[in-house]
Protein backbone atom coordinates (compact mmCIF):
# COMPACT_ATOMS: atom_id res chain seq x y z
CA UNK A 1 0.00 0.00 0.00
CA UNK A 2 1.38 3.41 -0.92
CA UNK A 3 1.43 6.35 1.42
CA UNK A 4 -1.14 9.04 0.64
CA UNK A 5 0.21 12.09 -1.12
CA UNK A 6 1.21 14.84 1.32
CA UNK A 7 -0.98 17.94 1.43
CA UNK A 8 -0.01 20.52 -1.10
CA UNK A 9 0.65 24.04 0.15
CA UNK A 10 1.07 27.02 -2.14
CA UNK A 11 2.34 30.20 -0.50
CA UNK A 12 1.89 33.35 -2.57
CA UNK A 13 4.34 36.11 -1.69
CA UNK A 14 3.40 39.45 -3.19
CA UNK A 15 5.47 41.89 -1.14
CA UNK A 16 8.96 43.01 -1.98
CA UNK A 17 12.06 44.00 -0.04
CA UNK A 18 10.37 47.16 1.25
CA UNK A 19 8.14 44.98 3.40
CA UNK A 20 10.72 42.58 4.73
CA UNK A 21 8.64 41.51 7.72
CA UNK A 22 5.85 40.23 5.55
CA UNK A 23 8.37 38.42 3.39
CA UNK A 24 9.85 36.82 6.50
CA UNK A 25 6.41 35.68 7.56
CA UNK A 26 5.65 34.26 4.15
CA UNK A 27 8.82 32.24 4.58
CA UNK A 28 7.54 31.16 8.00
CA UNK A 29 4.56 29.64 6.23
CA UNK A 30 6.89 27.85 3.85
CA UNK A 31 9.05 26.52 6.69
CA UNK A 32 6.01 25.37 8.65
CA UNK A 33 4.75 23.42 5.65
CA UNK A 34 8.17 21.89 5.10
CA UNK A 35 8.40 20.92 8.78
CA UNK A 36 5.24 18.88 8.30
CA UNK A 37 6.63 17.23 5.16
CA UNK A 38 3.99 18.86 3.02
CA UNK A 39 4.60 19.52 -0.63
CA UNK A 40 5.27 23.26 -0.62
CA UNK A 41 5.45 25.67 -3.52
CA UNK A 42 6.25 29.36 -3.33
CA UNK A 43 4.80 31.66 -5.96
CA UNK A 44 6.27 35.15 -6.29
CA UNK A 45 4.01 37.85 -7.66
CA UNK A 46 3.92 41.62 -7.90
CA UNK A 47 6.54 43.41 -5.85
CA UNK A 48 7.95 40.07 -4.71
CA UNK A 49 9.62 39.69 -8.10
CA UNK A 50 12.11 42.28 -6.86
CA UNK A 51 13.57 39.64 -4.54
CA UNK A 52 14.95 38.05 -7.69
CA UNK A 53 16.93 41.09 -8.82
CA UNK A 54 20.57 40.80 -7.78
CA UNK A 55 21.51 43.68 -5.54
CA UNK A 56 17.96 44.98 -5.20
CA UNK A 57 17.92 44.09 -1.54
CA UNK A 58 20.75 44.30 0.92
CA UNK A 59 21.56 40.65 1.57
CA UNK A 60 22.22 41.47 5.20
CA UNK A 61 18.86 43.11 5.61
CA UNK A 62 16.42 41.13 3.55
CA UNK A 63 15.39 37.64 4.64
CA UNK A 64 14.04 36.87 1.18
CA UNK A 65 17.35 37.66 -0.47
CA UNK A 66 19.13 35.17 1.76
CA UNK A 67 16.46 32.51 1.86
CA UNK A 68 15.24 32.15 -1.69
CA UNK A 69 18.40 30.57 -3.13
CA UNK A 70 18.53 27.89 -0.43
CA UNK A 71 14.86 26.99 -0.03
CA UNK A 72 15.21 24.09 -2.42
CA UNK A 73 17.79 22.58 -0.05
CA UNK A 74 15.13 22.59 2.65
CA UNK A 75 12.70 20.68 0.46
CA UNK A 76 10.79 23.41 -1.35
CA UNK A 77 9.07 21.67 -4.24
CA UNK A 78 8.66 24.63 -6.58
CA UNK A 79 9.69 28.29 -6.72
CA UNK A 80 7.49 29.82 -9.39
CA UNK A 81 6.71 33.06 -11.14
CA UNK A 82 4.20 33.94 -13.83
CA UNK A 83 6.04 34.30 -17.13
CA UNK A 84 3.83 37.20 -18.23
CA UNK A 85 4.46 39.02 -15.00
CA UNK A 86 8.20 38.46 -15.27
CA UNK A 87 8.15 39.97 -18.76
CA UNK A 88 6.04 42.90 -17.65
CA UNK A 89 8.59 43.61 -14.94
CA UNK A 90 11.37 43.57 -17.53
CA UNK A 91 13.02 40.57 -15.93
CA UNK A 92 12.43 37.92 -18.57
CA UNK A 93 16.02 38.03 -19.83
CA UNK A 94 17.66 39.41 -16.70
CA UNK A 95 19.98 37.42 -14.46
CA UNK A 96 18.11 36.39 -11.34
CA UNK A 97 19.34 35.61 -7.85
CA UNK A 98 17.98 32.08 -8.04
CA UNK A 99 16.48 29.84 -10.72
CA UNK A 100 12.71 30.01 -10.93
CA UNK A 101 10.10 28.00 -12.73
CA UNK A 102 8.34 30.24 -15.23
CA UNK A 103 4.66 29.44 -15.58
CA UNK A 104 2.53 30.37 -18.55
CA UNK A 105 -1.01 31.53 -17.89
CA UNK A 106 -2.42 28.02 -18.07
CA UNK A 107 0.16 26.55 -15.73
CA UNK A 108 -0.32 29.43 -13.32
CA UNK A 109 -4.08 28.89 -13.28
CA UNK A 110 -3.51 25.19 -12.76
CA UNK A 111 -1.19 25.76 -9.83
CA UNK A 112 -3.61 28.14 -8.18
CA UNK A 113 -6.65 26.07 -9.04
CA UNK A 114 -5.36 22.67 -8.04
CA UNK A 115 -3.65 23.66 -4.84
CA UNK A 116 -5.30 22.01 -1.90
CA UNK A 117 -4.00 24.73 0.39
CA UNK A 118 -3.29 28.24 -0.65
CA UNK A 119 -1.93 31.00 1.53
CA UNK A 120 -1.24 34.62 0.74
CA UNK A 121 1.25 36.75 2.58
Amino acid at each position, binding site marked *: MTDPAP*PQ*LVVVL*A*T*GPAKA*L*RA*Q*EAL*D*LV*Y*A*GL*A*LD*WSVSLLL*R*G*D*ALRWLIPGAADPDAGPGARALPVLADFGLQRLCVGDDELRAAGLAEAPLTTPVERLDATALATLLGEAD*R*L*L*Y*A
Partner: protein
Amino acid sequence: MHDVQGNKQAPADCAVFLTAAPWEAAAFAAVRDIEAAGAAVKLVLLHGDGVLLALQHTHTGEASDLWTRLDRARRSHGFRLGACPVAARRRGFLPAEREGLDWVGLPALFEAAAACPDWRCHAPPP
Protein backbone atom coordinates in the same frame (compact mmCIF):
# COMPACT_ATOMS: atom_id res chain seq x y z
CA MET B 1 -24.11 25.47 -1.65
CA HIS B 2 -26.22 22.97 -3.60
CA ASP B 3 -25.39 19.64 -5.18
CA VAL B 4 -26.32 18.77 -8.78
CA GLN B 5 -29.81 17.72 -7.72
CA GLY B 6 -30.36 21.08 -6.10
CA ASN B 7 -30.28 19.73 -2.57
CA LYS B 8 -28.74 22.07 -0.07
CA GLN B 9 -25.39 20.83 1.21
CA ALA B 10 -23.75 21.64 4.47
CA PRO B 11 -20.71 23.86 3.84
CA ALA B 12 -17.36 22.16 4.23
CA ASP B 13 -15.42 22.70 7.42
CA CYS B 14 -13.17 25.65 6.84
CA ALA B 15 -10.10 27.27 8.29
CA VAL B 16 -9.74 31.02 7.84
CA PHE B 17 -6.25 32.45 7.63
CA LEU B 18 -6.02 36.14 8.41
CA THR B 19 -2.79 38.06 7.82
CA ALA B 20 -4.21 41.54 7.26
CA ALA B 21 -4.02 44.27 9.88
CA PRO B 22 -7.30 45.23 11.56
CA TRP B 23 -7.46 48.53 9.67
CA GLU B 24 -7.17 46.87 6.26
CA ALA B 25 -10.17 45.97 4.12
CA ALA B 26 -9.07 42.35 3.96
CA ALA B 27 -9.50 42.03 7.72
CA PHE B 28 -13.07 43.28 7.50
CA ALA B 29 -13.69 40.85 4.64
CA ALA B 30 -12.32 38.02 6.78
CA VAL B 31 -14.65 38.76 9.66
CA ARG B 32 -17.61 39.04 7.29
CA ASP B 33 -16.60 35.67 5.83
CA ILE B 34 -16.39 34.12 9.28
CA GLU B 35 -19.78 35.50 10.28
CA ALA B 36 -21.34 34.24 7.06
CA ALA B 37 -19.79 30.77 7.26
CA GLY B 38 -21.17 30.28 10.78
CA ALA B 39 -20.67 26.82 12.22
CA ALA B 40 -18.61 25.69 9.22
CA VAL B 41 -15.67 27.65 10.60
CA LYS B 42 -13.52 25.32 12.67
CA LEU B 43 -10.39 27.37 12.96
CA VAL B 44 -9.31 30.97 12.57
CA LEU B 45 -5.59 31.59 12.30
CA LEU B 46 -4.07 35.00 12.96
CA HIS B 47 -0.63 35.50 11.53
CA GLY B 48 1.45 38.45 10.37
CA ASP B 49 -0.33 41.75 10.92
CA GLY B 50 -3.46 39.70 11.63
CA VAL B 51 -2.25 39.15 15.22
CA LEU B 52 -2.79 42.87 15.81
CA LEU B 53 -6.49 42.13 15.82
CA ALA B 54 -6.05 40.30 19.11
CA LEU B 55 -3.23 42.46 20.47
CA GLN B 56 -5.17 45.66 20.06
CA HIS B 57 -7.55 44.26 22.62
CA THR B 58 -5.18 42.50 24.96
CA HIS B 59 -2.68 45.33 25.30
CA THR B 60 -4.77 48.46 25.18
CA GLY B 61 -7.97 47.17 26.72
CA GLU B 62 -9.85 48.79 23.89
CA ALA B 63 -11.69 46.29 21.79
CA SER B 64 -12.02 47.21 18.17
CA ASP B 65 -15.37 46.57 16.54
CA LEU B 66 -13.65 43.94 14.47
CA TRP B 67 -12.32 42.08 17.51
CA THR B 68 -15.73 42.28 19.16
CA ARG B 69 -17.34 40.73 16.10
CA LEU B 70 -14.70 38.03 15.84
CA ASP B 71 -15.00 37.17 19.53
CA ARG B 72 -18.78 37.10 19.28
CA ALA B 73 -18.56 34.71 16.33
CA ARG B 74 -16.14 32.51 18.27
CA ARG B 75 -18.50 32.33 21.22
CA SER B 76 -21.43 31.52 18.95
CA HIS B 77 -19.79 28.88 16.82
CA GLY B 78 -17.04 27.56 19.04
CA PHE B 79 -14.20 27.66 16.53
CA ARG B 80 -10.61 27.57 17.68
CA LEU B 81 -8.88 30.93 17.45
CA GLY B 82 -5.14 30.58 17.07
CA ALA B 83 -2.51 33.28 16.82
CA CYS B 84 1.20 33.12 16.13
CA PRO B 85 3.28 34.29 19.11
CA VAL B 86 6.31 34.90 16.90
CA ALA B 87 4.35 37.40 14.82
CA ALA B 88 3.32 39.17 18.02
CA ARG B 89 6.88 39.40 19.32
CA ARG B 90 8.11 40.69 15.98
CA ARG B 91 5.70 43.58 16.42
CA GLY B 92 6.97 44.31 19.89
CA PHE B 93 4.18 42.64 21.85
CA LEU B 94 4.17 39.85 24.35
CA PRO B 95 1.47 37.34 23.48
CA ALA B 96 -0.85 38.23 26.36
CA GLU B 97 -3.40 35.72 27.55
CA ARG B 98 -6.98 36.21 26.48
CA GLU B 99 -9.97 33.95 26.85
CA GLY B 100 -10.47 31.82 23.78
CA LEU B 101 -7.17 32.77 22.19
CA ASP B 102 -4.50 30.12 21.63
CA TRP B 103 -0.95 31.36 21.13
CA VAL B 104 0.48 28.46 19.18
CA GLY B 105 3.20 28.08 16.60
CA LEU B 106 2.57 27.70 12.93
CA PRO B 107 3.23 23.96 12.59
CA ALA B 108 0.60 23.24 15.25
CA LEU B 109 -1.82 25.59 13.54
CA PHE B 110 -1.16 23.96 10.20
CA GLU B 111 -1.75 20.52 11.62
CA ALA B 112 -5.09 21.65 13.00
CA ALA B 113 -5.98 23.31 9.72
CA ALA B 114 -5.06 20.21 7.74
CA ALA B 115 -8.26 18.59 8.97
CA CYS B 116 -10.30 21.29 7.24
CA PRO B 117 -11.00 20.70 3.53
CA ASP B 118 -11.55 24.39 2.89
CA TRP B 119 -8.91 27.04 3.56
CA ARG B 120 -9.70 30.68 3.03
CA CYS B 121 -7.09 33.37 3.15
CA HIS B 122 -7.58 37.06 3.78
CA ALA B 123 -4.38 38.92 3.15
CA PRO B 124 -3.56 42.55 2.49
CA PRO B 125 -2.92 43.65 -1.08
CA PRO B 126 0.75 43.92 -2.05
